[in-house]
């Protein structure tokens, strides 16, 4: 008989709680396997279907493992950790792109950053899912990534620019108003839209639901 526990969590040290979860999911796979065999699937086909299902259970185990924990721990693990980790990298990439666009002014920094934002939003959300995060956790993790940029831009919009406006009121129409418009339209909206797109792609295109289908009447 196959060892279904190894399919669920191969070669991992487990505490008693995780052992119980793994045991229960292994029983589920075993039942799945037996039903496939009863429906006439060959041993090889049945085991292959069940193996595919077993290999995708990592996030589910972590989610179940942490279901018993308090909400704060889950938020720290599934939101704050991936969010800040990716925000750090995002900051580095942002600065690097700033340097590159300074050297090569023909490059559209906003477009590059929009793509980077999409990628980072996606990564934060996926990272959160791997750590057992639900949809809300994943969206918040993505939101944290933009916080770095949002704080910097908010500082500019609500503090620096108004002060400049007061000091240089005579240039308002010529220089400062278009600059303000540019910052709002590009530096904030672009990042926000890009991050939302990135996190939505991750949440909806790759939902944390096991979609392994068991074909009925699989040929023997």
């Amino acid at each position, binding site marked *: 008989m196959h060892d279904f526990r190894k399919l669920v969590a191969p070669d991992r040290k487990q505490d008693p709680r995780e052992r119980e*979860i793994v045991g*229960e999911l292994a*029983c*589920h796979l*075993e039942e799945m396997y037996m039903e496939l065999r009863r429906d006439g699937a060959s041993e090889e086909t049945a085991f292959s279907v069940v193996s595919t299902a077993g290999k995708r*259970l990592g996030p589910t185990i972590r989610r*179940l493992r942490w279901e018993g924990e308090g909400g704060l721990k889950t938020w720290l693990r599934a939101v704050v950790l991936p969010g800040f980790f990716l925000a750090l990298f995002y900051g580095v990439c942002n600065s690097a792109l700033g340097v590159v666009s300074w050297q090569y002014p023909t490059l559209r920094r906003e477009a590059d950053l929009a793509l980077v934002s999409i990628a980072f939003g996606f990564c934060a959300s996926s990272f959160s899912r791997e750590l057992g995060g639900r949809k809300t956790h994943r969206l918040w993790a993505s939101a944290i990534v933009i916080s770095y940029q949002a704080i910097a831009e908010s500082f500019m919009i609500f503090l620096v620019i108004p002060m400049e406006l007061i000091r240089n009121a005579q240039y308002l129409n010529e220089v400062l108003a278009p600059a303000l418009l540019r910052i709002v339209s590009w530096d904030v909206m672009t990042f926000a839209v890009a991050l939302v797109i990135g996190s939505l792609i991750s949440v909806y295109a790759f939902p944390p*639901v*096991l979609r392994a289908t068991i074909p009925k009447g699989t040929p023997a």
Partner: protein
Amino acid sequence: MDRLDFKVKQGSSEVIILTLLSQREMHGYEIGKQIEELSGGVLRFEMASLYPALYRMLKKGWLEAYWETSPAGRKRRYYRLTKNGRRQLRPLRRSWRQFLGALNRIARLQNA
């Protein structure tokens, strides 16, 4: 009928699971199969949505779980309703009946 591949929302999963377990104790796979069979294949709980729902209800104290060895010698983790879970079932079913009734009146689902 085509299988509707959608995530059953948390509220509906609770009323479905509680109703099934009010009839008899079952293990996870059995619950999933029962849902699929009784809904004519329309509803399907994947492992990644079934077990989190069960664990949530365990945490709320609506269910309790225990391991038992079947006559065939296989250990399975069975779930049963607690008194608290049984108390939750009636208001849950009532609110779902009201919701579906309202939906039917608006969308005329019976004529669809």
